[in-house]
Every structure is written in C-alpha cells, then in structure tokens.
C-alpha cells in the first residue's frame, strides 16, 4: 500500500529539551509521529578547545581535556597524556600505569552508569536513573579521595599523576566493587529485563555493522552492532595487554543486532568487565614507586607529529598533535568519539517515531561537551 503522504512539519528538538543530553538541537522533519529526516545542529557548547590548545602550554591543556567530555575526564586526560608521552618518549613507572588503568576503568563505569541511567530516563523510567547516580557518587568519592575533585580532576598528568593514592583507597575500591556486582543484577531486574523497556528499545534504531564502521562509530555503539573491536584489545595501549577481560559484543538477544537494547546491554556488561579489570589491577598494583618521578621539568616535545588514540567510554578518542619543538602545541586536534557517533543519527533514526528518536539518541550516549569541544 502506498503510504499516504501528508504535509511534513519541522519540529525543533532543542536546544532546550529534556532529552538532548545537553544543548543539542535536532531539526526533525515529521510526518505525524514519524520522523522522516533528522538534522543535528551542533556547536552550542563550542568552547574553542583546539584554539585554546594552541595558545597554552602542554600541561595546561589537561584541565581543558577534562572539560571536553565531562563524564569521562580521567579517560580524556589519560589519552592526552599518552599522546604527549609518546611524542616525548617518556617511560612511565609501573605504579603510574596501574593507577591510570584503575582510574580509567572506574571512570568508564561511572560514565556507563550515567549512560544507562539516562537511557532509562529517556524511555520514561525515572527510578533506575537515581540508582545509577547513587553508584556513581560512590565512584566520585573514590576520585575525590585520590585527586581532590569530584568531576574535573586534572589528575592524570603528562608523565605521571598529580598525587599518589591515599592510604585506604585500595580497601575502599574493593568495597565498592563488591557492592557494585550486586547492583548490576538489580539493573537487570528493574530495567534490562523489563518488558516495556524491551519493547521500547529492542529492534529500534538498528545500526548495521557496515553503517557503524563507515560512519566511524566506535565504542559500545560499534560493539553493539556485532563488531568485535575494542582498542584495549585490538591495539593494547598502556598496559591493557596484562589483563583478562572480554570484549562485549551485541548479540541481538531481544531483537536485531545493533538495536538500542544491544547498545544499552553492552554498556551494562562492560561495567562488569571494567570491574574485572580493576580487580586485577588492584591485585597487581606495585606498592612502591613515585608517581611523579617521570614528570618532565620542561615539557617541550621534539618536532614531529602524532596521532594517538585510546578507548574512551564513548569510543575511540584520538589526539592529533603537531609539535614545533616549543612548549606550546602547534596543532592540537581531538577526534571525539561522540562527534562521529552522533553523525549517524539520521541514518539509523529516520523513519522512526519521535519517541524512538529520543531512545536512539539516548542509546548513542552523546556528551555535547565533547561533540562541540
């Protein structure tokens, strides 16, 4: 039956809208409830990260990387520090590497908790969101213990860490991990298995693997499409090759591979894997070592350029740095994962209803700070 073609209405979703995860504007062309075309308009949160980067010295950039993806500050700073360290050929003490992994994985859990909770919120379940935030607060407590800040840490420095961890941190970390395993089962009960939730997310916004790769979608979204690609496995950076963990891949248990439910579930399962990595890292953590011993006095990388990438909770985070030998980066580009992940929204979201577009957007887990930089 030929579809009756009615007049289309342009609907502005955002910049002020409860479910755009920041100041994003989506121009929707709608036919009734059906959305026929989505055009994301971004840039409302543009804070000139790259321009700033070209005007301040290398260590000063770290606080700005924290602010790009404010839900994954540790990962961002880690990626940036690694890039500069590679450029300068800095060897890190073992303890620093382990602590960085611990913090990066804790941050991944914290970020996924927000993603999972906010996705629940997008499909209308308010309560799981608060449970997720409760757990996240415990992680932030750990971060506060170590770094002194709760959101923007400036903790991972080029060549080391700002401080060593305080006594009692390891015990508290174990305590949290024991408590957290129980909580994941609770999310399964209240959200993952919930029939309404499955109806809302399964088979919705299916992203085939080719589309995902072609659009540069990375991270949990790519893995949910059935592509077994995790930088921590494929190109192990830092010391990820020393840990045992599984790359979680979407299997389409409730619908099609690559649907919203898969993207959600990959995150839930990844949290368990991150917890597993943290446990191993805490066990192997060397007791001795000065976290600042490798911090260079003057940071002047030699002339050259580097593209360094790492696995952020949202996907592949790349830093492209050109150095002209001075203490200020000549060019600093951040390849942010959410930027690419959002660009796919028209491909997978067109043809669905307004409610589904919200769900798809939530399942992509974007952070506008990182998209607009």
């Amino acid at each position, binding site marked *: 039956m030929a579809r009756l073609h009615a007049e289309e*209405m342009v609907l502005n979703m955002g910049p002020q809208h409860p479910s755009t995860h920041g100041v994003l504007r989506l121009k929707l062309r709608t036919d009734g409830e059906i959305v026929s075309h989505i055009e994301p308009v971004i840039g409302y949160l543009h804070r000139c990260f790259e321009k700033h980067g070209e005007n301040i010295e290398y260590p000063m950039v770290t606080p700005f990387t924290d602010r790009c993806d404010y839900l994954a500050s540790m990962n961002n700073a880690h990626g940036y520090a690694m890039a500069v360290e590679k450029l300068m050929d800095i060897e890190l003490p073992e303890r620093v590497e382990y602590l960085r992994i611990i913090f990066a994985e804790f941050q991944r859990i914290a970020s996924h908790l927000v993603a999972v909770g906010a996705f629940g*919120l997008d499909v*209308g379940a308010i309560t799981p969101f608060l449970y997720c935030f409760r757990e996240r607060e415990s992680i932030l407590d750990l971060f506060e213990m170590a770094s002194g800040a709760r959101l923007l840490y400036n903790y991972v420095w080029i060549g080391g860490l700002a401080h060593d961890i305080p006594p009692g941190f390891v015990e508290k970390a174990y305590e949290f991990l024991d408590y957290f395993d129980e909580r994941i089962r609770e999310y399964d009960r209240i959200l993952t298995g919930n029939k*309404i939730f499955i109806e809302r997310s399964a088979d919705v916004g299916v992203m085939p693997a080719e589309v995902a790769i072609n659009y540069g979608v990375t991270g949990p979204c790519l893995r949910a499409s059935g592509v077994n690609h995790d930088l921590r496995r494929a190109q192990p950076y830092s010391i990820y090759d020393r840990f045992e963990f599984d790359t979680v891949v979407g299997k389409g248990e409730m619908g099609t591979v690559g649907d919203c439910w898969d993207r959600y579930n990959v995150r839930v399962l990844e949290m368990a894997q991150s917890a597993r990595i943290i446990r191993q890292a805490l066990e192997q953590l060397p007791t001795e070592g000065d976290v600042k011993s490798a911090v260079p006095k003057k940071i002047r990388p030699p002339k050259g350029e580097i593209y360094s990438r790492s696995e952020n909770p949202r996907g592949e985070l790349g830093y492209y740095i050109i150095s002209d030998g001075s203490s200020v980066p000549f060019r600093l580009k951040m390849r942010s994962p959410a930027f690419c992940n959002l660009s796919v929204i028209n491909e997978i979201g067109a043809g669905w209803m307004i409610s589904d577009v919200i769900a798809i957007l939530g399942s992509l887990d974007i952070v506008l700070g990182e998209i607009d930089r």
Partner: protein
Amino acid sequence: MIDAFASWMLQFGALSWLGTTPATILAMSLVAVAIFIFVALNALVLVYVERKVSAFMQVRLGPMRVGPMGTLQTVADALKLLLKEDIIPRFADPILFRVGPWIILLASFVAFAAVPFSPGWVPADMSIGLFYVVSISSVVVIGIVMSGWASNNKWSLYGAMRSAAQIVSYEIPVGLSLLAAVAVVGTLNLQEIIAAQAGVGNLFHWIPIPFPNWYIFHSPFLFLAGCIYLIAATAEVNRTPFDIPESESELVAGFMTEYSGIRWALFFLSEYANAAVVALLTAIVFLGGWQSPFADLAGARFGMISLTVLALIWTIFVKYKVKRLSIYPIGTILALTVIAWLFPAFAIWLATPGLVWIAIKGGVVIFLLMWFRWTFPRLRVDQLMYLSWKVLLPIALINLAGVAVWMWLTGAISLVG
C-alpha cells in the same frame, strides 16, 4: 443526600424561614464547596504522598524542610503557583488557552457528584451513576485538546493529539471491564453496586471463602476485569507507563508545555482529582466501596481468623527468607484479630465507618498507580494502541462473555427465562 441535607438544615429554627427549594440550592452549593475543598486537599495530600513515595522508592528522602517531614511543602508550592505571573504566549489563542484548564478541572470535579463516599453519602444518587462517572471523566480530553491546540506550540499539539487518541481508545476497555461487573449486579447505581458486595464471599457461589464478597474475589472473570480496569484507568488518567500525552522526556511537558502558574496548578489539581475518581471507582466496583472487609460479626471473625492464619504463614515462610521484613503490618493484623475476637463490638465498629474504608481502598489503588509510575518505562504511542486494541479489548470482550457464562453456570441468570 442533598434532600436529606436540606431537610436537616430546615429542622433548625434559624434556617426554617428558608423554603424547600432555596434550602436545596444552599445544600447543593455547600456540598459542591465541600467537594471542591476535597479536590483541592486531595491534590495537596496526593502530591505530597507521591513525592514521598517516589523518594522512598528512589533511595531519597523527598521534601523535608517545610513543616514536619516536609508536610507543608505542597502548600508552599501551591502558594507559589498562585502568586506566579500569569503568562499567556503572544501567539496562543487567548480564550481557549484560558478555558482549557478549567474544562479539565470541571470534568474531573463534577465526576465526584455520583461517587458514594459512605452509606447515604452520595451527592447525587442517580440510577446511572457508573455511566455518568465514566462518561463525564472523558470530557477531560476536550480540555486537553483545547489547551494543547491553543498553546500554539508543536509539542503541545503532539501532546493533545496523543491524549485524544489515547483516551478515546482506552474508553472501550474501561467500559467493557466495568460492564462485566454491571452484568453481575444488574444495576448502574453505584450505591446498589456496593450494597451487592456485602457479606462473606462465596467461591463458585457456594463455597464460603475467607474474603468479603467483593467483585474482585467474585469470580476469576471479574478479577480479570478488575485488572483490565486498573490498567485502562491508568491510561485514562495519563499516568506512567501510559503518560505519553505529557511524556516529559519526549514532548517536554506535552499539552502543559506553555502553561505556568495558576493554570498549571489547575492541571495538577485535575490530574490528582482524576486519579482519585479512578481509584474510588475501582474501590466501588471491585473492592466493595465503603463496605468493611468484615461485613458482619461472623464474617469479621471468619476473616480475622483467616487473616491470622495467612499472617502466620507469611511470617513463618517469608520471614525465614527475607531478612529485613517489617514486622509492623503483621503485628497490626494480629492485634486487630485478637481484639476483634475478644470484643465483638469492636469488630462491628470496624465494619461501620464507610468513609474510612473507601479512603483506605482508594488509597491502596492510588498507591498502586504511584508504584507503577515510579517503576516502569513509558510505552510508545503505537504500543499503547496495540495494548488497547489488540490485548485489552479482546480480553475484555472474552471476559464479558465469560462472566455471562459464569453467571449462567452458577444459576444467577438463566438463559431460558
């Protein structure tokens, strides 16, 4: 009730100069004012309760600052809303925009006219009470569409359209599930429906069971009808998981997007009034209305004994498994049982105050609605329609037939005569 009230007023010397008609009008207005106060207080209390319930479910505390345990928080909020600036968007339709909220409030307000609160306490004891309540509460949709359209906002329009589709669809399961009960009792008068649920329940019409004779326990079909009614009624009052007309994460606030201040407060008032109507109707049709669970002495004793047994079983089996089970409800039931056994007069007293019982029953239903709301995600529009037309409607239809068959089998109606 109005007439009784009027003649009661005329007894007093000071008022005897009034004629019968003015006294009736006065009585009517007084009752209307009383109901309005009830509606307003109802919203204040329910908003507070909802906040607390949601907070406790979400490991929070909820309002704690204004008044003891935050009890006056909603009063403070209501005052704030009253004092807010009256904003009407420039391109909104000025008349419809103003009228819309009032229509919604009016519709949910007048529905109370037929609700029996206690024996003899019904503002208008009409023979088509059930029909009246169901039909008048669907007038709400006119107000919603009106305010959604008048806001001149695309989100509001979406909310209004969704609401119209939803309420119209869910009218049918609501009607059919109520019809199942009506088929058993044979009247639309709410007082008579309640009266028919007196006494001790009978399983399959001849085995006495430890429950009162409420329609929810009457037969499996009526139990199913009760469930369908609850689901459909949740949709009728636009609460999660069926809150798509205002679905906060999608449509900002749906038809209420452009409203603020007192008009917005009216939406709130009517939302909770609607919830109360639905809860009361559930209580009346399926839970015996103002009937006490212990309708007479024998029934009370029987019920108490069975409750005791149940409580003991619960304590023995569940207490073993769940570590931190609260002992209070069981303790209360046990105490009541003992008291009722020792002092039959108390058991009879427990049976009498209808207002208390209907409030408790309504409260339970409202708590159930809140419980739904703070647990479930929201359905999509088409899934909502699917649920209504492809699940609830067929089941309700079959159920209605099932009730008829049941009645015929148990001899309540005969196909021959």
